[in-house]
Structures are given as structure tokens and as C-alpha cells.
């Protein structure tokens, strides 16, 4: 049985439809005190902050935007449970601030009518009064307040207008502790009310026994109406078949011609229309199209709309792919500088190496993602805020439903070509859980910029420079293009299989509001990007750092004395500086060979033999778990390269000249291609997996992604090797 947590703090919940300026109101109320966490077991963010009232601090929770309290997925259930006071670890809500968009009053009143029935004190924040005015349908806030029997405060959160009045209204409602008056509630049909009463009378005791709370009229109504809903399912799980049978019977009794859902919707919209008619100050004749309509004629046009979409997508991609580059280089440079400063000050040894390679390298590996994350989220926030994101989904939906995704997967997948980390974070905007998971699971297959150095090295060293059509088409370029396309080509059947198996079910609905265009609020945009960045650092950053320290330890230990002694002797006999540096490199290669990682590489040699690899390549692939490009550094070390980077001549020479034990070349074109395919398809990127864990709330999904991608990468590499060898003869 569930025990209610003690009422530690006073909590106010923000409830409203999507696209109503709810987040702007939240920002204005809580400022920089925001915290982002996850509700347990779901992928929904719990965004909260502190509002200082005359009674002291009040916790404000920004519930996910919703059109209705009928929860049809665990994600949607969170907001409803929070309002019903049934969320594990939460103590319930003391008052509700309902965000109501004045320019879209009727549909917003639908949700409000459901919120009214919870019996909690309600304050209405009436947003976008200016837009309603421009549309010729200004709302009379006083009349609306009189009709609803609760305070109605017009706010323009972007200008902080009305926020003080809103805070005062919240304070008063917390004092009063009374819900909306009975006479302002919508009248539901008698058949629905009878069913609710019957359910409460017959199962009230059982619910109290099983769940430890009252079966409220609001919860009973959801049980009766929501045929596929989460609430009736949860009740049925605990109350058994007797409850289910009775529920089915009650639903049959209600439904004559129409379903319970149709009865509820009709009653609420009738109420909303009535309130609307009396709350509109005046009705100006509409002068044809609004500005937003005219913009839409262009932006969703068959030809121009597509052109604009491609330009926007191209711009976003270019910004995170190339625009973030200077900052990322700066971070890499600073990391290298810090590491060399440590190497210079501390005596050589485990501590020096741990700090320089493990910790500083790890921290650098974390913050290097920040420029891309911040830039992408500035774009995402602008596109969502101004209303274009919904149009992009509208334009792309047909194309993406053919491969089993939805129009909302566009930005996450596109971003993943630069980096899967911000791409997976952007998948939050996808409403349906299965669509979101499918997108997250294939996002790492899109070829990210970290794979590029690996491609460049292997192609530069092994693919002959051949070109046709007067240099227009080059073989090296074609292989590079193929390396980028292979992930896309593989993603299509992967999504198809996911849809048939673990993510099976009805095609999720695409019932998407196309909100009126409006100017984005710069403060909210920057706030959003900053919160995402901070969250990444705190939640994924620690994991990434831990992983890089572990991999460092595996490649560093053990450190037998003999190697050091042996090389010290050799170095004493060395004459030139270059001889000494060659000895240093050889020493590092020997350390790595007998390290735990090196031993592991030898142990898995039979597994990588079908790919044409020897243990050194296998080990380098495993050791690149922190990030794919690490494979270059590890290969460089094991081959005795003094300065390992993808375009250093020494590196290319060493890779070309590497021999197997029997004297044959280690790398041939088939081996290089097999490694290239492996790196294109594998999940060797701890940051991606950490973000996946963060976004899905469980280790199950990153473990699954790692498993399926590694298997795919192995199969792809083996096929490539065997095929290429067959062709090459």
C-alpha cells in the first residue's frame, strides 16, 4: 500500500494546452531557480522551480502540455496523477494555474473544464490577449472570471505584464483552498454522472483498500470514459475481473447511439462555446485571412514550402556541423593544453596519466558536446516557439511514415548526422512514445561527425585516388559518401523490424495542432538551451567521465617494471632526439600490448578474425568505447606512431606498413573497408548511450541499442570483408 508523503512544501501546478505560452509564464514565475528531473519510469521531464510569495517559497511544477486529462500512455498519465495527488514520491498539488490561450479560447476551455472538476483552487492565466485582439476576438477577462467563478489574470509573460497580479491571485487561492463553484462546472449528461456514481459506490471501498485513496469523481469519470486509457487499466489490474466486467456493463448502459467519449466531448464543447459567446468583448468582422494564414500559404506551399523546409533543415545542419566547429576546436585545444600542463608539472606515473589522459581527457570529451547541444537547442526552441516545427512535421510526415517514423523525427535524425547526442535529446519533441523510441534507437546509425576522422584515415591510406568525368567524381569521395549512406540504408529495415517486434502496435496518431505563427521569445529560447546544456553536463557528463576513466585504467594497467627498465637502458644508448622519440613510442606500444585492454584484444581475436582483423584492430575498436575517434589514437599507439592523427603522414605510413605475425600486410583494402563499415554501424560512443539512458529513463534501451548495433556492425564488416576479398581475388 502506498503511504502519502508528508506535506513538506506548498506546490502549484501549471496546466495547459501545448503552444499556449505556458513555459513563458513558468519562466516569469520562477526565473533561474528551475530544475529539470525525470519522473520515475517514464521519459517525461519534471520541470519545477521556486516562486517566492508572501507565505514563503512555493514549488511550481510545469506539467507537460496536454489537450485533455484522458491519459492514454504512461507519459500522459504523469500530469494526471500529479493533479490527482497519486504520483509516487510527490505530495500532490495545492493549487492549479491553468494557462488559457485567449486566441484559441474554445479548445483551451475544454481542458479547463476537466481541471475544474478536480476540486482544487484554480487561477486562470489568460495568455496571448494581444493575439486575440488582433484576430478581432478580444476576451473580456472580468466577464470570463465572473462566468468561471475563479480569478482570470491576463498575462503577457514575455513582457512580464500581469505577472504580479498572477502571483497575488495564486497567493489568494492558496489561502482560500476552495475549488471552482459548483454552478460554473459544465453539466455532464445524466447517464455519465450515474455511471460515475455507481462506480464510486460499488468500488470506493476496494480502491481505498488497494490504493489508499478515495475514488474521486474525476478519476471515476476517466475510468468510465477512457476505453484505452491508463486509469481504467491501472484500476483493473488491481481490482480484478469483477471491476472490468462491471465497467464494460456501465459503458454499455451509457452508450446509446454515441460513445461515452463523444458524450463527454460534446458536453464540454457545448459548455466552452457558451462561455466563449459571453466572454468575447466584441466581435469584429474578420478581414479574410490572418497574418499567420498568409505566412502559411507560402510556408506550406507545395513547391515553396518544400524549398523553405530544405533551406531551414540545411541551415540547422550546417550550424551544428560546421558552425559549432570553432568552439569545439577551442575546447579540444584547451583540453590538450591542460593535459600537457599536467604532464609537465607532475612526475610521470599513474597519477599524472590518470589526470592527463583519464580525467582531463574525459572532461574534455564531455564539454566538447556543449557547442552542438546549445546551438541545436537554440534552433529547436526557436522553431518550436515560432510554430514552424509543426509545419516541418506536416510537410515531412508522409515521407517518414513510409519508413515507420513520424514527421516529428526530422530534426532529431537530421541533427544526428552531426552528432547523435543532441539528436537524441531533440527526440523529446516527439509526442508518441513508440515513435520517440524508434527515432532514438536509430539516431546513432546516422553517420556523425566523430566518424569522419576514421573514414578519412582509412580512405586516405587504402582507397586509390581514381577519378572520372574530369575529376568531378572521385573514388575516394564515392567511398566517403557510401560510408555516410550505409547507416541510413540500414536504419530503414531496423525501424521496420522494431515496428514488427518490440515497438509493435497501432500506427500512432498524427493529430497535431498547427499553432499560429508568432515571434519567439529570446529569453525563453536561451533559457531552454542553457537548461538542456546544464542537464547534459550533470546527468550524462558524469557517466561519460566515469567511462573514460575506466577505459583509461584498462589501457594503462598493469605497468611492469621490466618494460620501463628495458627502455631506459635503450634510451641511454640513443644518440638523436628522433631515436629517443621512436623508443618512447615503442615503449608505449609495449605497455598497451600487455595492458588489460591488450589482453582482452587477444582474447577476442577469434571473434574479429572473420572481419579480417588481428587482435590489434580488435582491441582498438573495443578501446574506442568512449568515442569512435579514439580508435585512431589507440591504433597509433599500438603501431608506434609518435603523433597520431587521421592526416599525419607518419600515421598513414605506419598503418600502411603494419604487418601481421606472418609478415603479410595487416591492412589491405578489404580489411580497411571492413573496419570502415564496422565504425559506421557500431555503437562505440559512451556519450550516445549515456544520453539514451537519460532520455529513456532506463538502461534497457541503451543496452539494446549497443547490442543490436554491435551485431549489425559485425555482420556488415564480415560481409564487406568477404565480398571485397572475393572481388579483389
Amino acid at each position, binding site marked *: 500500500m502506498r503511504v502519502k508523503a508528508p506535506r513538506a512544501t506548498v506546490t502549484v501546478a501549471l496546466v495547459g494546452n501545448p503552444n499556449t505560452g505556458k513555459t513563458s509564464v513558468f519562466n516569469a514565475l520562477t526565473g533561474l531557480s528551475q530544475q529539470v528531473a525525470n519522473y520515475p519510469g517514464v521519459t517525461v521531464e519534471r520541470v519545477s522551480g521556486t516562486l517566492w510569495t508572501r507565505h514563503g517559497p512555493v514549488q511550481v511544477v510545469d506539467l507537460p502540455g496536454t489537450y485533455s486529462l484522458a491519459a492514454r500512455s504512461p507519459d500522459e498519465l504523469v500530469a494526471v496523477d500529479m493533479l490527482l495527488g497519486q504520483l509516487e514520491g510527490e505530495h500532490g498539488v495545492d493549487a492549479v494555474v491553468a494557462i488559457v490561450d485567449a486566441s484559441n479560447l474554445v479548445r483551451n476551455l475544454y481542458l479547463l473544464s476537466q481541471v475544474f472538476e478536480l476540486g482544487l483552487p484554480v487561477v486562470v492565466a489568460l495568455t496571448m490577449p494581444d493575439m486575440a485582439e488582433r484576430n478581432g476576438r478580444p476576451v473580456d477577462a472580468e466577464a470570463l472570471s465572473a462566468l468561471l467563478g475563479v480569478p482570470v489574470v491576463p498575462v503577457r509573460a514575455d513582457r512580464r505584464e500581469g505577472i504580479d497580479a498572477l502571483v497575488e491571485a495564486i497567493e489568494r487561492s492558496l489561502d482560500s483552498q476552495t475549488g471552482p463553484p459548483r454552478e460554473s462546472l459544465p453539466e455532464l449528461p445524466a447517464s455519465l454522472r450515474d455511471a460515475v456514481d455507481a462506480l464510486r459506490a460499488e468500488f470506493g471501498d476496494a480502491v481505498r483498500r488497494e490504493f489508499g485513496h478515495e475514488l474521486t469523481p474525476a478519476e471515476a469519470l476517466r475510468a468510465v470514459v*477512457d*476505453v484505452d486509457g491508463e486509469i481504467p487499466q491501472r484500476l483493473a489490474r488491481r481490482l480484478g475481473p469483477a471491476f472490468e466486467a462491471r465497467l464494460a456493463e456501465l459503458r454499455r448502459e451509457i452508450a446509446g447511439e454515441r460513445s461515452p467519449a*463523444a458524450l463527454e*466531448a460534446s458536453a464540454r464543447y457545448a459548455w466552452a462555446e457558451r462561455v466563449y459567446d459571453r466572454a468575447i468583448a466584441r466581435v469584429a468582422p474578420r478581414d479574410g485571412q490572418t497574418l499567420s494564414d498568409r505566412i502559411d500559404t507560402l510556408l506550406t506551399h507545395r513547391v515553396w514550402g518544400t524549398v523553405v523546409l530544405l533551406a531551414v533543415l540545411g541551415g540547422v545542419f550546417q550550424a551544428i556541423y560546421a558552425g559549432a566547429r570553432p568552439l569545439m576546436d577551442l575546447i579540444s585545444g584547451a583540453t590538450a593544453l591542460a593535459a600537457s600542463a599536467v604532464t609537465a608539472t607532475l612526475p610521470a606515473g599513474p597519477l599524472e596519466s590518470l589526470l592527463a589522459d583519464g580525467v582531463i581527457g574525459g572532461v574534455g570529451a564531455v564539454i566538447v558536446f556543449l557547442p552542438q547541444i546549445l546551438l541545436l537547442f537554440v534552433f529547436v526552441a526557436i522553431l518550436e516557439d515560432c510554430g514552424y516545427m509543426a509545419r516541418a512535421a506536416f510537410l515531412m510526415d*508522409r515521407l517518414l511514415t513510409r519508413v515507420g517514423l513520424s514527421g516529428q523525427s526530422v530534426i532529431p535524425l537530421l541533427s544526428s548526422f552531426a552528432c547523435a547526442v543532441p539528436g537524441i535529446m531533440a527526440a523529446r519533441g516527439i509526442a508518441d512514445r513508440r515513435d520517440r523510441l524508434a527515432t532514438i534507437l536509430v539516431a546513432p546509425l546516422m553517420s556523425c561527425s566523430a566518424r569522419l576522422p576514421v573514414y578519412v584515415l582509412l580512405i586516405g591510406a587504402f582507397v586509390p585516388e581514381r577519378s572520372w568525368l574530369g575529376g568531378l567524381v572521385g573514388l575516394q569521395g564515392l567511398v566517403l559518401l557510401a560510408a555516410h549512406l550505409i547507416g541510413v540504408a540500414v536504419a530503414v529495415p531496423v525501424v521496420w523490424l522494431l515496428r514488427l517486434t518490440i515497438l509493435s502496435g497501432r500506427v500512432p496518431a498524427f*493529430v497535431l*495542432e498547427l499553432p499560429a505563427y508568432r515571434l519567439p521569445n529570446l529569453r525563453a529560447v536561451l533559457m531552454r538551451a542553457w537548461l538542456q546544456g546544464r542537464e547534459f553536463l550533470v546527468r550524462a557528463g558524469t557517466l561519460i567521465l566515469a567511462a573514460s576513466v575506466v577505459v583509461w585504467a584498462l589501457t594503462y594497467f598493469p605497468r611492469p617494471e621490466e618494460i620501463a627498465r628495458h627502455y631506459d637502458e635503450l634510451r641511454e644508448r640513443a644518440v638523436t632526439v628522433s631515436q629517443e622519440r621512436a623508443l618512447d613510442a615503442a615503449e608505449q606500444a609495449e605497455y598497451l600490448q600487455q595492458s588489460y585492454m591488450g589482453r582482452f584484444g587477444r582474447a577476442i581475436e577469434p571473434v574479429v578474425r572473420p572481419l579480417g582483423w588481428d587482435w590489434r584492430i580488435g582491441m582498438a575498436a573495443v578501446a574506442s568505447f568512449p568515442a569512435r575517434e579514439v580508435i585512431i589514437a589507440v591504433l597509433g599507439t599500438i603501431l608506434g606512431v609518435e603523433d597520431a592523427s587521421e592526416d599525419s603522414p607518419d600515421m598513414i605510413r605506419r598503418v600502411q606498413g603494419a604487418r601481421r605475425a606472418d609478415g603479410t600486410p595487416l591492412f589491405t583494402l578489404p580489411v580497411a573497408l571492413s573496419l570502415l563499415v564496422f565504425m559506421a554501424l557500431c555503437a562505440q560512443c559512451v556519450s550516445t548511450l549515456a544520453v539514451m539512458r537519460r532520455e529513456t529513463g532506463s538502461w534497457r534501451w541503451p543496452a539494446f541499442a549497443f547490442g543490436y548495433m554491435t551485431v549489425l556492425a559485425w555482420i556488415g564488416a564480415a560481409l564487406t570483408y568477404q565480398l571485397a576479398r572475393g572481388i579483389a581475388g
Partner: protein
Amino acid sequence: MTTLDCLSPTQSARVLGVRGADGLTQRLLEMGLIEGTNVEVVRLAPLGDPMELRLHGYHLSVRKSEAARVEVEPCV
């Protein structure tokens, strides 16, 4: 009587009801596609699907497969 997916752009209709009793039907109802609502097809996406509707003074996008559940009476 016809269904919403059969209408062409700029055509208007009055909703008679939404078929089915599952979550998708409930979603369409909640968005305002209830008996008596006036709905206009604004346009189709460039690839012919989904469609953009105007109802209760706002714009809504639905796939044709979803619109096929909405029974309407075209306005002339």
C-alpha cells in the same frame, strides 16, 4: 454523407460524428471534431497527406487515414 478525407481543399463540412471507440477516436473528439462542428479543409501537405483543417478558430493536421473516421455532411 461522406467522410472528411474525401473533401478537397477549401471545402467545408459539418461533422456528424467520429467512428470507433478507441483512443484515436477520443483524441479526435477532444480536439473538437464533435457533432455539429464546422470544419474546413485548408490544404493538403505537398505529398498529399496529411491534411490541414480549420475548426473552432484553430488549425489542426490529421492524416487521411484518421480523417476517414470522421463522418461529415459537406456544405454547399
